[in-house]
């Protein structure tokens, strides 16, 4: 038989564009004995920050207890595992209520929704970070005293 291999240039180009748009480094499509794979290394990842509608709540001087921040799980977490809790603000992390005191939570703990996970200090104000959900702490990604930026992964609760 030996029919010629049919290269669909259009599909390759389409996949190349998709690669761009999604920021992926490899796409492979297979169907009924046909397979196309495209890859690109080193390409700068495209920022896909969604055009978030400006939330109604202004981020003025922070309250002592932060509202569970829905944005923090929507934005800036493309690379994060499911269940990751991200920082709703820039600041310094404290894992315990006082120096030397026991940590709010440890890996393996079961937490309830609203339970304080950490303190984030910003402009000398201590902000309690409440857990956005009930679950089990599987990972803590920050150390006591560590500075964090907005959207930075703090811990994983599943």
């Amino acid at each position: 038989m030996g029919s010629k291999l049919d290269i669909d240039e259009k599909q390759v180009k389409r996949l190349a564009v998709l690669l761009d748009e999604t920021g992926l480094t490899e796409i492979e499509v297979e169907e009924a004995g046909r397979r196309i794979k495209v890859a690109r290394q080193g390409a700068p990842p495209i920022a896909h920050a969604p055009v978030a509608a400006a939330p109604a709540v202004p981020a003025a001087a922070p309250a002592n207890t932060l509202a569970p921040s829905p944005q923090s799980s929507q934005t800036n977490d493309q690379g994060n595992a499911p269940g990751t809790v991200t920082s709703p603000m820039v600041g310094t992390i404290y894992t315990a209520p006082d120096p030397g005191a026991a940590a709010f939570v440890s890996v393996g703990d079961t937490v309830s929704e609203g339970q304080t996970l950490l303190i984030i200090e910003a402009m000398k104000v201590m902000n309690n970070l409440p857990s956005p959900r009930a679950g089990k702490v599987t990972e803590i990604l920050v150390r006591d005293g560590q500075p964090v930026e907005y959207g930075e992964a703090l811990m994983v609760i599943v």
Partner: protein
Amino acid sequence: MFEKILIANRGEIALRIHRACREMGIKTVAVHSTADEEAMHVRLADESVCIGPPSSRESYLNIPAIISAATITGADAIHPGVGFLSENATFAAMVEEHNIAFIGPKPEHIALMGDKVAAKEAARTLGLPVVPGSQGAVTTENEAKAVAAEIGFPLLIKAAAGGGGRGMKIAQNESELPQALAMARNEARAAFNNDQVYMERYLAGPRHIEVQILADGQGNIVHLGERDCSLQRRHQKVLEEAPSPALNETQRRAIGKTAVTAMKKLGYRSVGTIEFLFEDGEFYFIEMNTRLQVEHPITEAITGVDLVREQIRAADGGILSVKQRDITFSGHAIECRINAEHWRTFVPSPGKVRGYHVPGGMGVRVDSGLYAGYSVPPHYDSLIAKLIVHGITREDCLMRLRRALEEYVVDGIETTIPLHQRLASTQAFMNGNYNIHWLEGYLADLDD
């Protein structure tokens, strides 16, 4: 000298400040929203801190986030740039309370000049020429009529807290006055949550001429001549030039001296710009911008003085590197503001820049954070690049501008480059014969 400066801004001005810092051996911290992770100044900065989501309110206007970022990175000064928090007296004061230097004027001067009514009163006191107008806020129709009788028609009603043309109405005669007053107050209330308005004589065809001030807060104050920013669309500057083709040397020296005297009296520090309307040889104070201006590079081009560098030095307690007698004006400079907008419809055109090629050669400067592959985010203003050209004469400068615009390529998004190309070859502009209304008329004519 400062060791690390946090740049509380984005876009080309953040890059401009980064460059000045680098050239002074100062480390930089870029703060940015999630939409600006790939911005050029973020990529070039020594450190970067994500301070919030795309919304300006939660990022570039988020005072606690910015001050926290300065604290955690150990920055010893904050440069506010242009727009955003650059004229927010509360921010300036809070920065200083945190023992971080604010690279700008004293908070009380920001506050003073931020209130249009107080600013005009201050200008009068400082000896700056002002347009005849109400002494303070006008509330009732009767008050308005009494003031109008003094200053004459046509007149302008403006929001005290305003800017950018919002809360601004013209009354051609007394019969138009009540409605104009009501509309101005309504708009002012909606836009600024403050319905105070004031009135002043409306000039029919003035030019916008502004004087650049530089002061170290230690008694040394100089002016760096004027910029003509009369080419405006909806009160937004489109193209600026220095010197103004409408001023002669005597007028230049006189208004410069008046401005310096006023700033000495005020005890001003840092860079600042006093904006005037200019008609029939007379200047009328509009407002003072207590910050760097977008169009500062044309002043740098004709004076050789690096304004951002001087501003940083002054904030650090240094004295000015130049005295008035050292400042000479050499040649002519024009700046084109290149926006990510369709050049005729002015519809914003954010998106991915597929190809990018800047003009080069003698007398050409480009300030821009664009690069091929960069996506212009839809969340912020549309200024993406400034093209600044310098020539020995205005004619040389225009020729150079045309050839530079010819070389400029921005693929993938719409820009206002085609508008600048047309302007650079339009007779009225070439003759220097235009006022603040000219551009809108020119654009309207294009529509016909």
